[in-house]
């Protein structure tokens, strides 16, 4: 019942500017085992963590400009865990020689009233999917191997079908803005996974 310390630094805009550095690739289902084997060898020595998440993508249509997108994710394996709300900014248009996609990232843990609350704010759910797979770590780098599944009936995560015959692989690092050595480390790690897997910088705008 001691008073918590009342000296927490106030959060002001721009004080915390985390950037996500991202490289993406994919492997066909047949190649999954070899990839997991290679990753177990290259990554930190710990049991890879399995996950099954349900992600909902919400859009807020404003008067002008592009709709504001938020991603809300919850774990199907740990139903009491908080929801994870994520905002990803526009990719930084920097020098082309930068090896990874860099974008501003805000991660918020939220209570279970999140979807209802987002609706009240004016957000509408655009689409949802289920992602199942494993997470590996190497230092600050995170490798996520996931199978994306389409949700057939909205809200029902039991009834799903795979979106493709492959697994999506993402190599990412969350770091404060301005750390350019990060993408170098990512590139050298990605080199070690070739030719099994080609991780590259994929501009999301090209896919729209």
């Amino acid at each position, binding site marked *: *019942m*001691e*008073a*918590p*310390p*009342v000296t*927490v630094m106030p*959060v002001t*805009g*721009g*004080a*915390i500017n985390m950037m996500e550095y991202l490289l993406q690739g994919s492997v066909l289902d047949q190649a999954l085992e070899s990839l997991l084997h290679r990753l177990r060898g290259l990554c930190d020595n710990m049991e890879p963590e399995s996950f099954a998440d349900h992600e909902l993508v919400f859009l*807020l249509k*404003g*008067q002008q*400009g592009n709709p*504001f997108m938020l991603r809300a994710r919850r774990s199907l394996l740990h139903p009491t865990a908080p929801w994870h*709300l994520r*905002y990803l*900014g526009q990719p930084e248009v920097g020098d082309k020689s930068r090896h990874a996609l860099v974008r501003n990232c*805000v*991660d*918020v*843990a*939220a*209570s279970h*009233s*999140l979807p*209802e*609350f987002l609706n*009240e*704010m*004016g957000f509408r759910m655009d689409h949802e999917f289920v992602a199942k797979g494993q997470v590996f770590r190497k230092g600050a780098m995170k490798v996520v191997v996931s199978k994306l599944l389409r949700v057939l009936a909205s809200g029902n995560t039991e009834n799903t079908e795979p979106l493709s015959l492959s697994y999506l692989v993402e190599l990412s690092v969350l770091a404060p803005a301005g750390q350019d050595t990060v993408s170098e480390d990512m590139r050298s790690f990605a080199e070690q996974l070739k030719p099994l897997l080609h991780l590259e910088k994929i501009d999301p705008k090209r896919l729209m």
Partner: protein
Amino acid sequence: MGVTCVCQVPVAEGKSVQQTVDMLHKKLEQLGAVKQGNFWVDCETYHATGNATGQPSKLLYVMHNSETPLSSMALFEGGPGLTADANFDVLMVKLKSHFQNAKGHKVESRGTRYRYCDFLVKIGTIAMSSSARGISVEVEYCACVIPGDCWNLMKEFMQSFLGSSTPELPTVFTSKAEGLYAPVDCMDTMSQYLELFGKVRKQQVMQGTGVR
């Protein structure tokens, strides 16, 4: 985390806000309560922009409580609430083209935190634009999470130092579906503060002789 009741205490006749607060502190110390640090609760208002003309803009309140320093609570009046971590404030900055911060509407209550056995009493001065507007008293009974089970005890305790200013059972507990037997969460405390801050804001508009 126990059952919390938040109420407003009127400023004593002929005394200032600070003097009334000091009187309450004295009463608590006479009872045997021990001072245990400070507390603050604040509330920021955001207007939703981009609504069709004629529709009143929805108000989103983002509140913080020193008791849970790493959390931010977001509420709509009479609507759903969200408990999130401190990064929610950073997200609101990103959303500034859709939700504008009404900076002049920030209300906060700051004061001393007292402990008396299983009770936590927080006497705060409510301030808006750095001028004192009232006094808030928060009483938390930490040993119980069901309002129905401990309300009588809390009322008796409050009467010992609030006298006639003792409030009735907060509406946030009576309006719950299961009645008096549902456990509380921190949203209940923040809803009560929100209601109190709303009252204080309106009082200010009435008193101000046309000057905002």
